[in-house]
């Protein structure tokens, strides 16, 4: 008997079209479509691709919950033993969709799911803890390498085989700690490592402590008078009522709020979603965290040209480094697209 696999791909790989077709709704087709052919070959006789789900990236991104539910229902009809999504390479929205689908499959159908992505795909940071993502190159040129690796991994999972380390199996490190029995007592391993360190020989720590990287500073703003300044905060400032439901800690999202015509953040309209500090003072006057009032004055005085008409807000407290990174990258993309010159970021 061979295992039944459902494959998930986007409109582009289904040959439907590019960005202009990115809003197509999910559909399911029997058998293989596009890269499914290669997947079929790599799986050999042990598993069969019984159906392929196709969904437009934009449609998925803007209707995540509903699209996931629809797709799960479609998949269920084919009684899959496992789901393979992508590979998405470095396509951000495609990667996010693959991640969301695989996570939902694992959680709701209780069967293994595998995808493939380039390590910098935002889908990796968002979903790597939930399931296995095979590391791929950044473009479809890597298809020939990616598909066999994904097939191999999904077969292992289906057969319930023990997986090796990320390096051995070719998946992206999920950041999950797993126990195993070593050949030596922990004390002996510690003394071995101690000797290696003393002698300046290479050793691998068993628990890497969190470390931080650096980015070189950007050049200064030369012409402030013509600059557009944007405000970003990790202090959780948001319109009253927290319409986007930004979490008080461990935020999973950031908010984008329009401040065209707003001269001052009053307590009637703004508050903080932050649970990481005593919110009384920020709730009384949100300018204490995000200085809109002063910046409007200076804009009027011509110190700089324009205060960008939106601000971005999230809660820094307890938020995973990976999420914060993702937020920063997405915010930066929007700001650059809108011609912002420089950013004032406030934290509590």
């Amino acid at each position, binding site marked *: 008997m061979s295992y039944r696999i459902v494959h998930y791909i986007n409109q582009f790989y289904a040959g439907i079209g590019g960005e202009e077709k990115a809003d197509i709704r999910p559909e399911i087709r029997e058998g293989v479509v596009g890269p499914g052919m290669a997947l079929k070959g790599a799986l050999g006789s042990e598993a069969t691709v019984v159906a392929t789900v196709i969904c437009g990236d934009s449609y998925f991104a803007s209707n995540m919950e509903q699209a996931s539910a629809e797709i799960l229902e479609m998949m269920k009809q084919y009684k899959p033993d496992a789901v393979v999504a992508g590979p998405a390479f470095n396509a951000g929205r495609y990667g996010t969709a693959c991640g969301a689908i695989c996570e939902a499959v694992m959680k709701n159908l209780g069967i293994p799911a595998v995808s493939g992505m380039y390590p910098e795909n935002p889908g990796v940071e968002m979903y790597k*803890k939930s399931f296995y993502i095979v590391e791929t190159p950044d473009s479809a040129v890597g298809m020939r390498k990616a598909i066999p690796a994904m097939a191999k991994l999904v077969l292992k999972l289906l057969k319930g085989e023990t*997986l090796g*380390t*990320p390096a051995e199996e070719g998946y992206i*490190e*999920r*950041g*999950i*700690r*797993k*126990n*195993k*029995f*070593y*050949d*030596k*007592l*922990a*004390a*002996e*391993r*510690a*003394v071995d*490592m*101690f*000797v290696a*360190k*003393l*002698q300046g020989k290479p*050793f691998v*720590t*068993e*628990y*890497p*402590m*969190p*470390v931080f990287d650096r980015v070189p500073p950007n050049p200064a703003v030369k012409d402030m008078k013509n600059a557009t300044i944007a405000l970003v905060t990790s202090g959780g400032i948001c319109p009253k009522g927290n319409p986007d439901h930004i979490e008080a800690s461990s935020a999973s999202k950031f908010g984008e709020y329009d401040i065209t015509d707003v001269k001052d953040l009053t307590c009637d309209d703004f508050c903080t979603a932050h649970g990481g500090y005593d919110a009384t003072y920020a709730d009384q006057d949100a300018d204490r965290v995000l200085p809109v009032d002063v910046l409007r004055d200076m804009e009027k005085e011509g110190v700089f040209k324009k205060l960008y008409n939106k601000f971005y807000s999230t809660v820094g407290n307890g938020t995973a480094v990976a999420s914060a990174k993702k937020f920063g990258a997405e915010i930066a993309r929007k700001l650059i697209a809108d011609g912002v010159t420089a950013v004032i970021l406030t934290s509590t």
Partner: protein
Amino acid sequence: MPISLKGGKERTMKLELHRVKISKLAWGDATSAKDGVLTVNKEELLSVLAGDERLTKVDVDFAQPGESVRILPVKDVVEPRFKLEGAGGVFPGMLSDVETVGEGKTLVLSGAAVVTTGKIVRFQEGIIDMSGPGAEYTPYSATCNVVVILENAKGIDKHEYETACRMAGLKAAAYLAEKCAGAKVDAVETYESLSLKDMPAPPTLPKVAYLYMLQSQGLLHDTYLYGVDVKKILPTYLNPTEVMDGAIVSGNCVSACDKNNTYVHQNNPVIANMFKRHGVDFNFIGCIVTNENVTLLDKRRSSSYAVKLARTLGVDGLLISEEGFGNPDADLIMNCWKAERAGIKTTLLTDEYAGQDGASQSLADSCVEGDACVTAGNANEVIVLPPMDKVIGEPEEANVIAGGWQGSLAADGTITVELQAILGSTSELGYTKLGAYTI
């Protein structure tokens, strides 16, 4: 296998461990050891433990490797040892006088252990399974256990009861070994704690010490050094051989997985492995004992003081072992960066609390200097322990011990718990082969 370290004579502290190997327990008329069998006179052992008005009931039982037996809640495990020759007696300051130990000859009933059980603080004791999947995780499934079952007198303080249990375990261990004093010795190991002046190893070798962190958060989370509550000490120097004679005694009622039982102190595997590399890879000059107190003031004081001692001793490296989780992580990290910034290379030995799914942060604290770290595994991983034919102690405690939860104990006797509940499973003295890696 004898381990001998060459060196000067006068100032060295030489300890011979005379090992009598035990592979089976039996009841009998006279407590003695012969052909691998430890025979125990139950009445006599009970009479040794009698007379403590803090205990209403004392009983003893056996639990041997491979048997379908579960013991819970376990408080401590002690190896039977007895001083044949040399100053002082085993467990100085507890059972014997406070004379310095670590020299002469000490009899060891290798393979035997005294296990104490009794409810003290309901949620802080552990499980030992003698067979099945749980047995792989605890070192005490491989020892022939004389289980001392204790019940407290009504109205007695918890500390008084803890003291009574602790003393009962030590007394039973010393009694068993003393009665076997004439037994045929299977192996003799020699260890020498050398004075700094006589350090024999090539001067080109780095000098290293072992920074030995002991749990000391409060009366029921304590450890004793020559009978002194280590909460009250400043970090101090200790010869490794003193530990072998029971200079360090556990008084802990903390999480079972990483409380260092008296047994692992007596058999400290870090010390054993440091001795093995002494004179080859480094010069092992001994232990610095330090504590893990609750106040930040104490933490700062002890870490600075311990590192100062290390600097004064002129060490190039410190191997640091932790005990416990949470605030001891702060002590571990302070010890680490203070030593590293003083130019002393460190390696850390700890365990992890990364959550049942392994996705949480493993330690409560971190520093960039902690680049060499060995872990004894994630204490939160869940394990299913199938029912055993016999349970010594109180099986329903599985629902309240740390690592268990309401419903951990199923009707058929199956227990589903985190490794945290299994005694010694993530020993931070490194007495198991468990470890963790990132997937």
